[in-house]
């Protein structure tokens, strides 16, 4: 008897919470998207866009434009190039929408266009060639070779406590901008966009092992650049 009452209460609770969720979802859609397009799946929107429906294409772009802009901003390191990369990406997407077969998610497809646009736009940039991996390793005392070429190691402490926010931001942006393009891409996709190594390897068309190595080298090189900048800055502050 007691159990039956308990079950009934649970059922009622479930029912109530179910109604609540679907209402709030509907509310969300009605407020954020035009009524009908907002309820369509990505697949439906793509089909409509391919048939020439601009509002469907716009709805697709709306979902991805902030992420693409964010990626472009980090890749380029400045607003003007970021704007160009973003615009060129979406213009290219219009040109190539008929070729989109849906093997990858639409967002991934846009990423791959953005990476290509970024490469051609930023190819004029000058970046520092990376050193051999040994140069980024700790020297570890007598058992290690290459000690004369070893990584800069000192205790960074908390850079926020030692540097102004703006100064710190500039150091980081510069350090990222100094990475050769393919290393910058690997690093940002991994740690800014939070993609897995496998996803990145598919996106950039490299093996998993090569992708892993690229992400590692980028991280080591970036660490090294930051380390030398901090060393100089900290010395001035003392």
């Amino acid at each position, binding site marked *: 008897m007691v159990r039956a009452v308990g079950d009934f209460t649970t059922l009622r609770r479930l029912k109530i919470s179910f109604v609540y969720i679907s209402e709030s979802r509907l509310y969300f859609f009605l407020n954020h998207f035009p009524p009908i397009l907002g309820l369509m799946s990505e697949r439906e929107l793509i089909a409509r866009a391919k048939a020439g429906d601009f509002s469907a294409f716009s709805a697709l772009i709306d979902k991805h434009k902030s992420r693409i802009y964010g990626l472009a901003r980090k890749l380029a390191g400045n607003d003007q190039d970021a704007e160009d990369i973003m615009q060129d990406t979406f213009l290219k997407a219009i040109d190539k929408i008929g070729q989109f077969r849906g093997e990858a998610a639409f967002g991934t497809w846009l990423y791959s266009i953005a990476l290509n646009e970024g490469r051609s736009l930023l190819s004029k940039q000058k970046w520092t060639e990376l050193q051999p991996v040994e140069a980024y390793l700790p*020297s570890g005392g007598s058992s290690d070779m290459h000690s004369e070429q070893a990584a800069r190691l000192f205790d960074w402490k908390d850079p926020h406590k030692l540097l102004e926010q703006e100064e710190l931001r500039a150091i980081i942006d510069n350090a990222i901008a100094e990475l050769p393009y393919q290393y910058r891409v690997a690093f940002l996709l991994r740690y800014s966009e939070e993609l897995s190594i496998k996803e990145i390897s598919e996106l950039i068309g490299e093996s998993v092992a090569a992708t892993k190595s690229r992400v590692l080298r980028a991280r080591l090189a*970036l660490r090294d650049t*930051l380390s030398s900048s901090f060393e100089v800055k900290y010395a001035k502050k003392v």
Partner: protein
Amino acid sequence: MPKKCSDYIQDLNDYLDGEISPELCEEIDKHVGECKNCRLMVDSMKMTVKLCREGKSEELPVQLQDKLTSLLKKRWDEKFKSSQK
């Protein structure tokens, strides 16, 4: 033969990103606990990623959004009008 610091380098990212076998993780933990250089290396590699993730969220500025929409509309009309001819 005992391992050198540089023998661990290939695995450091997997170690830091938590994508490594428990055995190797334990081995690196032990080495890092005993080796000051590797500890500094690991700490600053962690901080490198943390600092790069901190950047402000790059919201698309409103005036750029409007510009983008009209640019895309123009290209769209060119493409679909010319294909209808």
